[in-house]
């Protein structure tokens, strides 16, 4: 381990460690995946893995991935909600792993809702 010399050195460590502690504060953006029995049956876990992979690929640190139980729209599982701080909660339905990159790049990163997948908004 090279000795630390500057704030830059510190920042590097901080970056590489961010996810260690970043996951401990609800991020600016929250992605919530329905993990009820129904959801899991419909492939929610595969979707979540896709989400994790995509976030890792893009090095997004400030996004928290949460799970929740069945929210009662089982027919549309897997469900994936995106919440930008201060914006209404957007719920996507019948999400497939291949939809994930799009949702993340469009909505999570650029704030453009992917309308064709939306099944609901709530405040």
């Amino acid at each position, binding site marked *: *381990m090279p*000795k*630390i*010399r*500057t*704030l830059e050195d*510190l920042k590097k*460590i*901080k970056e*590489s*460690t*961010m*996810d*260690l*502690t*970043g*996951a*401990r*504060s*609800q*991020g600016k953006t*929250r992605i919530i*995946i*329905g*993990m*009820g*029995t129904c959801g*899991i049956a419909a492939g929610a876990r595969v979707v*979540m*893995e896709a989400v*994790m992979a995509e*976030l*890792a690929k893009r090095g997004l640190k400030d996004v*928290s*991935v*949460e*799970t*929740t*139980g069945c929210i009662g729209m089982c027919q549309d599982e897997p469900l994936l909600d995106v919440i930008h701080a201060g914006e209404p909660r957007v719920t996507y339905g019948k999400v497939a792993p291949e939809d994930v990159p799009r949702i993340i790049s469009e909505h999570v990163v650029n704030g453009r809702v992917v309308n064709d997948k939306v099944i609901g908004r709530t405040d």
Partner: protein
Amino acid sequence: MGLYRSHVLVCGGTGCVSSGSQAVLDALKKGLADKGLDKEILVVATGCHGMCEMGPIVVVYPEGTFYCRVTAADVPELVEEHLFKGRIVDRLIYKGEGTVADVPHYTDIPFYKKQHRIALRNCGYINPENIDEYIARDGYVALVKAVTEMTPDDVIETVKESGLRGRGGGGFPTGLKWSFCARSAGDKKYVICNADEGDPGAFMDRSLLEGDPHAIVEGMLLGAYAMGASEGYVYCRAEYPLAIRRLKRTIEQATEYGFLGDNILGTDFSFHLHIKEGAGAFVCGEETALMASIEGQRGMPRPRPPFPANKGLWGKPTNINNVETWANVASIIRNGGAWYAALGTEKSKGTKVFALTGKVNHTGLVEVPMGTTIREIVFEIGGGILNGKKFKAVQIGGPSGGCLTEEHLDIPISYESLSQVGAIMGSGGLVVMDEDNCMVDVAKFFLEFTQAESCGKCPPCREGTKKMLDILGRIVAGKGTPEDLDSLQYLGTMIKETSLCGLGQTAPNPVLTTLRYFRDEYEAHINEKRCPAGACVELARYVIDAKKCIGCTKCAKVCPVGAISGTVKQPHVIDQDKCIKCGACAEACPVKAIDRR
């Protein structure tokens, strides 16, 4: 390393470890691995969360769900339900007083909501054995900033501006203290961290050392840089093995990163840090005694002046601060003095950590801004008095602090306000007492402690506290005289006036404050031979309630001295002269007709 969607924090503080958090930790790791979740969920052992009587504590992020009293047996459910399916396990979540509508986030819990954590900011939040997590929380930014961008004087000025004062109890302005040591000439200087936490029931230092040791080290580094010290000691009680282990680990890591050792950050600033395990004598918390102990002599105070800033450890200029003080320094340098000074009262800035114990619903570590009232701490954070009993007093500032009453509940806590009413900030002990506590007995309890811990060097503390103890012993035994109160008052005043060190100068406080605020209780003991709280055994009286008594004679049968008389089916009576207050009758009575007064 991959990204984790969720972190499960398991408290690794001494409190929780003793209540089995290690087993929970292991079970969690295994459970997650079995479910194949170990790639996406990270389990972290953290320092103390403060709410120790609720341990073992587990917090699940990002939701921040706060589970308490978790056992290994609960883990499978926790994994299956929450971590896998995202369903909160209701029965394990923390419920404040009564029920809670929806699951509160960690920080929404009343115990935490009222708190403002600076010293404790990382406790329970990071893995204290991983320097990277500390750095992720902006650790060592202050050090780098100071060493590369600030002059030693800048650092001292910032600390002065922050208004930080010694958290060990004295409350001496830290920046000023530093400037003395910085100004005093010497080829070699020392900084010392006083971690000889001796107050009964106090554990803030321990929690800080266990929960965020790097913050202490960074604080000392900043002090060393500011004062030109090249060597430091952490004087820690040997009774804190976990804290010592983590400190050693911390020193290793900091040395590896080049924060400790020679030419720190490539500059000519060098600092070497040692750990000195103390035998845990109370008086070694006194800075001159502490230094004597580090020098290998018996821990005994010496008069000041000369002050450590001029003639300290091995005669060299030395600066001693306690753990909590050091823990605040890095944040102050990082965020600026004004930021810290924005909190607190006019003369007492920032926050203070208290160890809340006694007859409250939630005991534990509490960090609040100066100026918070005792009422807020006891009733909002502490959740009020146990079993709805009546609040009577709080002993604030440790064994040599003072007992405050109902009427003081709303004074904003500050060094000044407390000393005005005869108490002290001390290291932050807060013992809550209810109607069942006899204040004479309480005063006696604390004095017994200070007398037993008196180093014996100076007569006032050695002989005087003993004499006061004799008198208190008489009073609780119902043998006191009215003159005794004057003697207590006089002795107390003289001991404060003439004792060598802080221990002796404050030892009489519990007696003097109870004399001041609960004189009636003393007088009841003396004049009526009665203990209003019914706590003093020698003064207890067992009385049979004639209305309730059914004359079953059970009491008369169990009385070992035949003090109870009465005919069958008729109310019985206790001969107070014979009664030895063993309480057997009260236990035997089927209708609870006998009560103790």
